[in-house]
């Protein structure tokens, strides 16, 4: 699904430059649930941003579903993001003046779907994350966990090939973190490829594979026995 080879990225800081990613190679198969771990400054978020076409690599090859991602204009990057990728952010990034349903429907609007279909699909995905009754509520009326579930529904609504989650539980307490991870596991079980950036070990162990970054290189890449979260136990 994802294939990257020799990925390099540096940021210019005045005269000096900061080499963040130093030749990353990574293969991701369809249906994987991967945790990208590392302390802050290890380059894990930069990697995710490049995978998400929110940022560009300086060097290296990136293929997504056998499409070479290279020399993107802003417009084609926007179209690829819309078709291939779903994002979940640490701070949810819901649009605060739109209710849950409208937030979920937004990527569908950019896909050019009709209003009726958008509403119907958005409601379907809200139901999937268990928030159908909250469809008309504004983000400010939702709890942190609910917000993140709306964000996941929004990411899923455009039926992306890959779901990218950047510290999805970073702003949540452990109980709601588990709820969100349970949802992510459920979506993964339905066959979606998911990459989760995290610095928490217990969250990482809820995934099937852990890739550890340190100072811009992959230091460890291992499959793990997934800890399935059962929210009912908690």
């Amino acid at each position, binding site marked *: 699904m994802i294939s990257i080879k020799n990925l390099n990225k540096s940021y210019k800081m005045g005269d000096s430059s900061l080499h963040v990613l130093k030749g990353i190679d990574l293969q991701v198969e369809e249906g994987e649930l991967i945790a990208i771990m590392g302390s802050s400054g290890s380059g894990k978020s930069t990697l995710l941003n490049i995978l998400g076409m929110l940022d560009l690599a300086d060097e290296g090859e990136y293929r997504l579903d056998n499409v070479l991602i290279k020399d993107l204009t*802003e417009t084609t990057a926007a*179209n690829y*993001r*819309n078709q291939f990728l779903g994002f979940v952010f640490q701070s949810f990034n819901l649009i605060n*003046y739109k209710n849950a349903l*409208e937030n979920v429907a937004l*990527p569908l609007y*950019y896909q050019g779907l009709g209003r009726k279909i958008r509403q119907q699909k958005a409601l379907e995905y809200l139901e999937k994350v268990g928030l159908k009754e909250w469809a008309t509520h504004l983000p400010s009326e939702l709890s942190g966990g609910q917000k993140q579930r709306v964000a996941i529904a*929004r990411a899923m609504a*455009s039926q992306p090939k890959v779901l990218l989650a950047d510290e999805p539980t970073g702003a949540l307490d452990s109980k709601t973190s588990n709820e969100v991870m349970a949802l992510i596991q459920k979506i993964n079980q339905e066959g979606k490829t998911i990459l989760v950036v995290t610095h928490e070990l217990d969250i990482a162990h809820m995934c099937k594979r852990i890739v550890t970054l340190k100072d811009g290189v992959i230091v460890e890449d291992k499959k793990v026995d997934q800890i399935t979260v059962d929210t009912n136990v908690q």
Partner: protein
Amino acid sequence: MFNRDRWQEIFQTIRKNRLRTFLSGFTVALGIFIFIVLFGFGNGLKNSFEQFFLDDATNTLWVYPGLTSKPYRGYKANRRIEFENNDLKAVKDNFNFFLEGITPRISRNITVSYKGESDNYQTRGVAPSHQYVEKTIMMKGRFLHQNDIEYQKKVVVIGRLVAEDLFKDENPIGKFLELGSSAFKVIGVFQDQSGDREERLIYMPYTTRQLLEKNSDKIDNFIVSFRPEIGYASAMAFERQLRLFLKERKSIDPRDNNGIRIRNVADQLKQNQKFARVLQIIVTFVGLGTLIAGIIGISNIMVFVVKERTKELGVRKALGATPKSVIAMVLQESIFITTLSGIFGMLSGIALLTNIQDQLERFFIIDPYIDTLTATLATLLLILFGGIAGYIPAKRAASIKPIVALRDE
């Protein structure tokens, strides 16, 4: 532009961000409103100026006698100058080339009565060309004729209000009025644009007035109208020559400024037109300043609005919004708001001007107005700049990488 979904997006943003919408709309509406009101007031001032001169012909010289201040040719100073009928004739004979008309004026207050109704009115003994000088408009009957002058007829032309006061609903033409102890036949009723005072006057042949005063040949003053086509410079020359001629005739020292006074309406008008023009320039300048202030205001708000939305625009981009659609959305929203509020400001400004009419007359503002072209142009200008002011920050926001926009503070 006519995408229903995008309009829905825009209406939602407008509805959900009332303060922002109100602020930008208010700035535009206020800017255009103030511009229109100021510009209208400027025009109102100009109207006042024009109205001062509207009711009188402007190609006239008003000649008044005075007291001499210098001894000359054996006469002492402080001699009272008086005009007589033969002075009129001499002016007529000597300045035939410049002359259009000449009329004396002899003003007397007198009690006038008709069928028991009576009141005090000012009568003026004049010649037929006086009608032109005062721009007297005949409502009924006719003005004085040369015949009336020659035969010293006892006829009067009365003002609209005199007719109302004395005759009520009766038709005054052909009726006889008592002026002092003599009966005068009413031959005409006139109106005058300069208001009530002028419409309480009674005109009679100046020869008749002189007849009543023991057949004297004295006249109070006289008004000369010159041919308009001679131009401003010739008019000034005519004034100088007339002054010299009269001084010579009346044995007044040429350096004496007090024996004869001449009021040149053309010259006064020119001075006032100059003043009005300067006023117009000032008003335009202030109006432009207001417009520029409005433009700066809307630009500031647009920068702020886009800044505030940076994160939202980043989210939209992450979800697949192209830079073009981001710019279009911001721009369309700002143009929509500025257009609507611009038109609102324009219409309320025009409505205010229309309602004022003559309520501010004591501030010399009469019938303030703004022509549709200027109003529309100013509004369009503000909308255009509102659009440009929205476009620049929107373009910048659209080109920010979503990752920068989404970065947590």
